[in-house]
């Protein structure tokens, strides 16, 4: 009896497993290609070595997006949020270590080439514009599940926990307010030193590389953060201190969506996996059912109680 059970459980595991495990091994063989860059991908380049921390971009952001300034840390005197939050889509923070090394950093949505928030959003409330590549949020589709907050590797989307009609708050590149009409976003337009500039992804990446080439050794690892991180982003960072000090996570070149759908895209492609599992289940169940029904009829004909399903 126990021999039979062992075989059965292995089959049982195999039933759910075969469809899942087999494509897994196939998928791991094929590597992830580079992300697709939208044709007119807009971009932001933030050079931390140029930023003076004036925070003009922050007030411009709040003004453009009609967000009430968060004055929490300043006793209501002026805008001073502790971090990105449901009233702050853009923030300037200071990294300062006792040894004397310091840097400002501007944080906002990275507008990933393969955004995890868009991949997970069940009803396409978060979408990446096909042309400009801007990641926007649509309140008419959002159910407030907050999967975007779980999946975002940069911890960017924020939720209005204290509102009756809560929104997901994150930088949308001022798409509605300015980009649509051909204008620059609020923050880049306000920056007095050119620490953050606006342009196409192609041009800004070339610009960043020129800066690195012009001053070898000035920038951390002579690298542009955002070129390949998490599949690449549309916001670039240049910094003299390590990126991790600025709160930018060190990510592999594979985007979360690519990692997460490697197996499932094969199983669910043409619904082949579910169809196979269903065919196996139904084949077996139907055979056993016919047998069961024959036994039942005999049993009930003998005058026993009706069988219970």
């Amino acid at each position: 009896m126990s021999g039979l059970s062992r075989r059965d459980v292995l089959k049982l595991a195999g039933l759910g497993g075969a469809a899942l495990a087999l494509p897994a091994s196939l998928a791991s063989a094929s590597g992830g290609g580079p992300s697709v860059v939208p044709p007119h991908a807009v971009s932001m380049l933030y050079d931390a070595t140029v930023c003076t921390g004036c925070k003009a971009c922050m007030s411009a952001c709040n003004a453009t997006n009609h967000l009430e300034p968060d004055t929490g840390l300043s006793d209501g005197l002026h805008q001073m949020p502790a971090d990105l939050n449901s009233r702050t889509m853009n923030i300037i923070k200071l990294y300062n270590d006792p040894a004397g090394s310091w840097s400002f950093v501007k944080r906002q949505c990275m507008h990933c080439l393969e955004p995890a928030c868009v991949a997970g959003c069940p009803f396409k409330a978060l979408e990446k514009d096909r042309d400009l590549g801007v990641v926007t949020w649509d309140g008419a589709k959002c159910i407030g599940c907050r999967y975007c907050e779980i999946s975002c590797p940069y911890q960017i989307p924020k939720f209005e926990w204290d509102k009756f009609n809560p929104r997901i708050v994150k930088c949308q590149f001022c798409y509605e307010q300015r980009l649509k009409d051909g204008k620059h976003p609020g923050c880049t337009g306000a920056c007095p030193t050119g620490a953050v500039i606006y342009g196409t992804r192609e041009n800004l990446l070339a610009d960043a590389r020129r800066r690195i080439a012009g001053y070898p050794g000035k920038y951390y690892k002579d690298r542009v953060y955002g070129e390949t991180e998490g599949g690449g982003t549309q916001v670039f960072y240049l910094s003299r201190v390590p990126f991790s000090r600025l709160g930018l996570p060190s990510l592999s070149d594979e985007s979360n969506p690519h990692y997460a759908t490697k197996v499932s895209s094969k199983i669910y492609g043409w619904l082949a996996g579910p169809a196979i599992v269903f065919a196996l289940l139904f084949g077996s169940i139907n055979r056993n059912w016919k047998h069961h029904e024959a036994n039942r009829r005999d049993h009930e004909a003998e005058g026993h109680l009706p069988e219970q399903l």
Partner: protein
Amino acid sequence: MSDSVWQRAIPVYEDRSVKKTFIFFTILAIAGTILAVLRMASPLGRYSAMNDFYAWGVWKTFNVMTLTAIGSGGLAVGVAAWAFDRQKLHVVMRTALVTSFLFYTTGMLALMVDVGRPWNLWHILLPWHWNMHSALLEVAVCMPTYAFLFLAFENVPLVLERYSYLGSDATRARIAGLEPVIRKIYPVMIAFAYLLPIMHQSSLGALMLLAGPKVHPLWQTQALPLLYVMAAGIAGFAFVIGTLLVCCLRYSRPLSTDVLGELGSLMSWLTFAWLAFRFVDIAVRGKFGLLLALDKYTAYFVLENILLLVPAIMLRSKQLRETPRILFMAAVSAGVGACLYRLVPALIAFIPARKANYFPSVAELTMTLGFIAAAIVGFKLAIRYFAVLPGPIADWQFAFKPATPKQPKS
């Protein structure tokens, strides 16, 4: 049809007094329901401790991702009974199906409470609004379809049975007309009733794939969906075993060590398969070194595996799995282990990009426990009014007798 002591599902008629435990669970369920209504009429932050870093609290990670594993008895026992023809398990199917239905329902209740913009849920009805790449969409569509269509269908015969005995002649005739229809579509319906939970129980694991490096590498693996659905099977078996033992002892029914042993044995083999998949996966990814960190993640990892491994080994002994007390402890251990495995990657080994804390608020926990209490109250009522729990055929003579008129007080 079987020689076991359990021959038939029979309603509980022995004890109809209202006990203190029942009152306690009812009060807890009502408290949870009241809070749920208040929560639906308030901002989400008012009744929960969730924040932008731990955006999913106990409602999603425990009530949905963990407790639907406990509600997977209908899947685990059903696949064993119907797909693998373990005929002696048919007698406990109803126990599995009713517990599954109740835990799925309460899970979905928790999901409703958790969603911040429920007025937009109507998009679920329009497939062209779906994001087909989202594991959460798969869960959101598949789970209610399973619970309220296929699982509900599986529970229909036991409801009809009651009214075929107690209903009027017209009701009886109508039910007699329905039965051939049910039997005609039954095999197709239960095949879907096993396919769908395999899909959404694995998708629940796939949810955490998208969180990528935020989930500790001991748990973050491409095998998460497979391990999740198998853990659901283990927890499903464990919960059915536990429920049967508790209820049969509570209502003084004889125990069928034969059937219980079979459930224990299947659970044990499934656990071995799960452990094998898990350890091969970690070995292939070369992550065993992380256990040397001896931090809280090491502790949770060791705890999960011990809670599952020990009962799996014990239940290989026929003598041990047919000893009710041992079997009960083994089921509790495996059930807790499987549930822990489902909870840990979603909450405990989930590490946001910034230092943050989350501990559920009192209101949040009251709702979580209230939903479980509602399931217990529902189960208590179900086994009283319907033939759910298995028992010896001799007891059937008391089942479904029209109520006797109340004794006039003298």
